[in-house]
């Protein structure tokens, strides 16, 4: 058995009467990527904050590299574990000063600092950004600076809270690549919270499913997703993930009934309880029904509009809520607004069956 970087034993955290983390046992192994997967409010962020030693647990015990952590004085252990927040938070200064901050705290000499910052910027593909004002960068660039700022510290444990939420696919892709590289090259143990199933399936070595402050399932992705169907209903909050009953069709595809009269056609042949996921980028939005080869067309209303960098994220309610991403340009050209009636279209082949 591999040695654990960190270990939570019956860790509980409560704010007043509200228990957000409920007697969680969790081991983080050396060199692994562990994903905490669960809906908002399931306690992922709190676990990350406890592992970063910036939040004190109400009960239980935390071990770091075999030693029990004294939460009264975390100044030393904090140097070994760092967290990248979900909401990108940068100091109001240059990119260089942001990334060098942790190194300065560690009293790293200036020449080394300069070199490390340069390297970190290369990794996140922001070469030459040192002197730019960090807060004037685009959202995606800001999040990459935040990641670089954590990477440069070369901590034993790297904690990422929804690293790609609110990022356009290009930036999200860069980040996923970075996470993978860092883990492989530095053997850094990484714990990331996510509610993006697609991401959870791709990157991590292990997945822990979280729900209402508890870890309900933990194991390799294939194993967890195999068992997932019965629990997946609880994860309906995750974007574009639906559970339903599949029925094979005559044409060799299957139709998954996800409720409210919404039937999704998928290419895989399935029968019975199934979970499906549709990548938001794969969905086409139009004001009228388009004639195409795509098998899935639904009519619905826009219920939410969120501004990402170059993209706009829409929630379209077609009986079930779908998340779609379109470019800002097409958003304004189509003149979309809240409550507008739109059609969403996607191919059967872009539906992933879990």
């Amino acid at each position, binding site marked *: 058995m591999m040695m654990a970087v960190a270990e939570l034993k019956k860790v509980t955290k409560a704010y007043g009467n509200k228990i957000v983390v409920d007697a969680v046992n969790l081991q983080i192994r050396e060199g692994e990527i562990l994903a905490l997967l669960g809906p908002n409010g399931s306690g992922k962020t709190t676990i990350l904050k406890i592992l970063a030693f910036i939040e004190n647990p109400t009960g239980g015990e935390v071990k770091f590299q075999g030693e029990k952590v004294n939460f009264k004085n975390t100044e030393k252990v*904090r140097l070994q574990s*760092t967290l990248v*927040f979900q*909401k990108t938070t940068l*100091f*109001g*200064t240059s990119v260089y000063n942001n990334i060098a901050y942790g190194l300065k*705290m560690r009293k790293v000499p200036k020449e080394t600092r300069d070199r490390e910052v340069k390297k970190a910027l290369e990794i996140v593909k922001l070469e030459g950004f040192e*002197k730019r004002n960090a807060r004037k960068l685009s959202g995606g660039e800001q999040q990459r600076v935040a990641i670089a700022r954590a990477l440069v510290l070369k901590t034993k444990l790297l904690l990422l809270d929804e690293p790609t939420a609110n990022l356009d696919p290009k930036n999200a892709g860069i980040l996923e690549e970075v996470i993978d590289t860092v883990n492989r090259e530095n053997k850094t143990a990484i714990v990331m919270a996510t509610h993006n199933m697609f991401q959870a399936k791709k990157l991590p070595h292990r997945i822990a499913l979280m729900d209402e402050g508890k870890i309900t399932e933990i194991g390799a992705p294939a194993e967890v997703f195999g068992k997932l169907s019965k629990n997946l209903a609880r994860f309906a909050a995750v974007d574009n993930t639906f559970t339903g009953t599949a029925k094979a069709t005559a044409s060799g595809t299957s139709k998954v009934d996800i409720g409210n009269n919404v039937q999704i056609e998928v290419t895989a042949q399935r029968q019975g309880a199934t979970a499906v996921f549709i990548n938001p980028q794969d969905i086409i939005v139009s004001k009228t029904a388009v004639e195409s080869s795509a098998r899935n067309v639904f009519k619905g209303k826009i219920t939410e509009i969120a501004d990402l960098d170059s993209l706009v994220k829409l929630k379209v309610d077609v009986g079930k809520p779908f998340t779609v991403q379109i470019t800002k340009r097409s958003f304004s050209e189509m003149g979309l607004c809240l409550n507008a009636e739109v059609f969403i279209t996607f191919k059967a082949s872009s539906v992933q069956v879990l």
Partner: protein
Amino acid sequence: MADVLGGIVEAFQLIVTGDPEILGIVSRSLLFSGTAVILAILWGTPLAMLIAMKEFRGKTLLKTYFSTLIGLPTVVLGLILFLIFSRGGPLGFLGLLYTPAAIIIGQAILVTPILVSIGVSAIESVDPEIMSLSKTLGASESQAQVAVLKEAASGIILSDIASFNRAIGELGVVLLVGGNIAGFGIRTDVLTTAISRNVQIGEIGLAVALGILLVLILFTINIIIVVLRKANYIVELAKAPYFRLKRYRETK
């Protein structure tokens, strides 16, 4: 009425020729008020941090108290301090009355409410995540507090300027605890007291000259701060076309 135009002409002559009397008064004003503001920053900043970063009972009351004190008439504070520093008063044994130290401490007390009030709201408006962020990047509690303070810098600089403006422009404290001593030995007369006296004795030219200088000093200091704050922005502005070009090439 006195010849105002003549006064202004005389004022410019005095300023241009660098009249030693005027130079002395100006440098005393700058020295006393500058030191007072530095002192007030030193004790006002930790107070602001304490009020903004800690939770305790009576916090709102304390904040209200400081914002109320901003409007205290300087002559009232001057009188209170005079009675305290007076040889017959509780701190009389120090013998500080009519010394620069009395003026400096008096003005520092005068501007502390400005520094604390604006400082507290500047610190409170900083993203609360900055504290956790600094800590997770390896800062100690104390270093994290400094990081929050840095984020509040622009608001705090604003309070520093406001304090200096108030200190150098006030009359009550410097008159009552400083004594407005002119002459040849230790002097405690500054711009405001000298203006007031010269108006009284009909030296309109000198009074106008000092008034112009007071305004010029305030103006210069405010300009310097604005330029310093803008400097960063101007550098950014100058660089922008270069980065746009670079990004354009990259996309190709």
